[in-house]
């Protein structure tokens, strides 16, 4: 009998983790950008109490992204440890997260299949899902959106403006980070 069997992570695992880290980065900043660009996300975020901290994460010890509402506005905290989150959505493993993050499966589909757990108020979770649907409408092309969104994507601004806003936010965050 072989004892203490150790199997290293599959070759693809690192790639999936990296992909998840990148998409989480985009999603976090996408949420912040859409909260400025799109009235639907703005309206959802307005209903969140100030200080609300929302984290998307992958178990165990995978990448994560956090956004926090402070002073009435949403800010992206990236992958840093945010402390206790008001709402924590955790994908059970990276394989559960990747199809959602690359637009092959809807966010609600992940919940429906028990691929993710939710810690916190369910109503806030649903508000987040509605925000993510809008964000996905901007980030993904319509051919993918048709598969993952409950309704055809409606955009109040163009893809390009959303991406520019996202990159601008990233640049300003980087500058803040460098300054601090």
């Amino acid at each position: 009998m072989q004892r203490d069997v150790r199997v290293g992570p599959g070759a693809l695992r690192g790639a999936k983790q990296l992909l998840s880290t990148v998409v989480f980065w985009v999603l976090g900043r996408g949420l912040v950008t859409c909260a400025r660009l799109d009235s639907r996300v703005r309206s959802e975020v307005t209903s969140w109490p100030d200080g609300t901290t929302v984290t998307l994460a992958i178990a165990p010890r995978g990448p994560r992204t956090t956004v926090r509402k402070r002073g009435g506005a949403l800010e992206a905290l990236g992958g840093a440890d945010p402390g206790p989150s008001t709402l924590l959505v955790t994908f059970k493993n990276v394989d559960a997260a990747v199809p959602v993050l690359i637009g092959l499966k809807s966010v609600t589909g992940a919940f429906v299949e028990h691929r993710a757990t939710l810690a916190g108020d369910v109503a806030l979770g649903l508000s987040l899902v509605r925000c993510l649907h809008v964000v996905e409408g901007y980030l993904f092309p319509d051919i993918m959106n048709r598969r993952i969104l409950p309704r055809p994507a409606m955009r109040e601004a163009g893809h390009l403006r959303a991406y520019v806003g996202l990159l601008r936010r990233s640049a300003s965050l980087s500058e803040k980070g460098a300054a601090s």
Partner: protein
Amino acid sequence: MIPAYYEFANTAKVLSGDRAIENIPYELRNLRCSRALVITNSQLRGLGLVDVVLSALADGAIEVGALYDDVPVDSSVTVVNEVARAFGDNRCDSIVAVGGGSVLDTAKGARIVLSTGAADLMDLRGSDRLVGRFMTPFVAVPTTAGTGSEVTGAAVIKDTERHVKMAFASLDLVPDVAVLDPRMTMGLPPRLTGSTGMDALTHAVEAFSCRQANPLSDAYARAAIDLVRVYLPMAVLEGRDMRARLAMANAALLAGVSFSNSMVGIVHAMGHACGGVAGVPHGDAMAVLLPHGMAFNLDCAGERYGELLLHLAGAEAYAATPASERPAAAVTAVRELLSWLHENAGQPVTLSECGVTAGQLPDIAKAAIDDGSIVFNTRDADVHDILRILEGAM
């Protein structure tokens, strides 16, 4: 229909039938327990139903460490904490809950506190938060045939100070033992028998047609609907019929297992909201809203409803109905059952009859869109869709 992926669990041992309650001590000993906390409410105690359980425990040499009989109509965090304290103060090692949804939800809440040592239940809201913890042994004895709470992993507890309804969902909340004894439901009046039966039917129909329906939950849902079709009218007309009562208790349990795994949909989202905004009893809301929710879903769930016609209307009606007409016929079958309950048990058929006013509808629609059940509905619905459905049900 086979989903790409699904999960299913039913961990409760079921005791169903004549003198099932007398077997509770045996099950408690199997769980290494000897001193129970009994949870119920004063009304059930007054009806003598709790005495049946207490004497069974005494006969089986199980001590009753404490009897908590002050559970209110809505489970609250205050009561949950009192129950948990009573459990510890009286050195109990197990919970026996005798009652309807609020008693069983209170017991589930107390079980969370006892099993996690949580100082604030609010910290444990959400889904699948309790996995892997040792849960206090728990026997559930339902006294209505509708909620299916004796086999579900869901609980709703009110925080009366913060005015928040806390939802908990975890298969670890499922009781260890579910006891279906017809003596517990024989005294239910026809009106309550009807509305709780419609609650069970709604669980089954929604579980069968929602987004996480799977072959296992389907089997439970089909069996539940068959029992409701045959035995709900009998239980309403002849409440002392033990066979009808036991069948309806089984229908509620089967539907409970089904929806605990595949979840419910828009009818429950609207029903919870009607309860929260307008105080509509859950069973009444389910009865009124089920045909309207089904009609809304027809475009997406028509094929599934067509399959359900066999169970809702029976084999002859199913065979006599062309396949293309079966979905609509299934909705009609539910409407006919509701009308029958209206005539024979005074069951309300509109939201107005339940006391809902037109002015409350926007708030109900807003609350429904924030209810977790909406995610699992087969057809996407926004606040305008829900408002239209509610207006149709007035």
